[in-house]
């Protein structure tokens, strides 16, 4: 007679069902009579303090709070140009920006060059590592933009200098 084992089972994802032949003794089916296991058969153990395995907590819940003063009055003075003082300019309303980025937009190289213009002298004297990082990044980008990345000649548009006249024809092969 084959039945499923009714002893404590391990938690596993396998669909294997173990069937064992048993006999009835004292009203219960017993498997491996007389066997004394030597492994731990209790419950979960506490986390081992000597191992560097800290528990992984969920990130703390940050309540959005839609009605704090800052959130309720968001965008308050953006139309002051129309409804109030005409001389206010919008770069003056940006408060959380570094001083070299107030009212400026551009790509990465333009950002770095503007920072160098505003803060280069101060960094050269007081923060030499940051200055060297800045200028190495600028040099890297200038090299990459101008000399790297092979430019397909059949995609390059014909460029004309500032004092030269524009051509009369349009060559479709150029683009």
């Amino acid at each position, binding site marked *: 007679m084959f039945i499923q084992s009714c002893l404590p089972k391990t938690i596993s994802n396998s669909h294997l069902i173990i069937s064992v032949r048993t006999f009835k003794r004292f009203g219960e089916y017993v498997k491996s009579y007389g066997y004394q296991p030597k492994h731990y058969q209790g419950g979960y153990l506490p986390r081992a303090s000597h191992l560097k395995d800290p528990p992984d907590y969920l990130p703390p819940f940050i309540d959005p709070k839609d*009605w704090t003063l800052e959130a*309720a*009055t*968001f*965008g*308050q*003075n*953006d*139309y*002051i*140009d*129309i*409804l*109030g*003082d005409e001389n206010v*300019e*919008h*770069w003056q*309303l*940006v*408060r*959380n*920006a*570094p001083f*070299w*980025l*107030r*009212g*400026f*937009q551009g790509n*990465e190289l333009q*950002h*770095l060059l503007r*920072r160098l*213009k*505003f*803060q280069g*002298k101060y960094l050269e004297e007081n923060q030499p590592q940051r200055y060297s*990082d800045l200028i*190495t*990044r600028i040099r*890297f980008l200038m090299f990459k933009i101008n000399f790297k990345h092979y430019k397909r000649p059949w995609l390059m548009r014909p460029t004309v200098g500032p004092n030269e006249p524009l051509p009369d024809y349009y060559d479709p092969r150029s683009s």
Partner: protein
Amino acid sequence: MIKSLSLVKILRQCSIRSIRHFETSTQPPPFSSDPTSNPISQQLPLIVNRQLEYPHVRYPPLQAWLETLGQKRDEKLGIVDLHPSIWQTSPRLDILYENIEWQKTYKKIDWAYTPPHHEYPSMRGKPWPQKGTGRARHSSRYDPQWKGGYKVNGPKGPTSFFYVLPKEKRIEGLCTALTVKLHQNDVHFVDSFDLPTHQPTYLQELTEDRFWGPSILFIDDTDIMPHNMMFASAKTEGFTVMPVYGLNVYSILKHTTLVLTIRALNKIEKKLLHALNSYDTQKDQPAPPDEP
């Protein structure tokens, strides 16, 4: 808000003795702020005969109720005329979207920074020889495929997304936001913000009885507000008080209702009509100073 009620019908319904006129120039409100006396002691209804500048060619002026905050009972004091080129424009959702996106992004600064390869420790040493060990071949310990290595095309430094939306689009955004609110019955006009008590429960119960919504934007013409109003709005969540120059599309659409005073309405209409009917030679704003 009413659309098809005419002045004649109202005059017949209410027995009036005199009509009080309001002009576009600022005047002190007619009601005294005595809590003991009945705040509405003058003759009703008050037809606020506002003279509209630059009258619209096609549409007549719109009409809306004039209400009070001085008493809890919802008694209408009269009717207010509104200019159609501000309060009856087409509901352009794309313009509203552009205004909101501009307000969100032009002040944004992205502080994310991933250091490039030259800001990492020494890159000279090979971690183990090329051949002999059974491991993969590597040239440096801080390559991008390593854990703790540099990132190649990651975000670099504080980046700004500053730009200024053209003035015409911003004006049209304000007008569309106001029309959208008015035609959804979410705008209320009030004579002034003089409350009888400083208790915030007074204003909360008043707004609940009148179904004015959980969040209300109160707009007055100056920065200085009455003490009772400030106290009540500071203690309740969802009530914000602003002057006229603080009005913006984001706040109009964030709050469910708008409450304007007559003085604020005069100022807004004056500024917006002047902007709509004038030609601006200076298209873009001047650039910020380039000197460090």
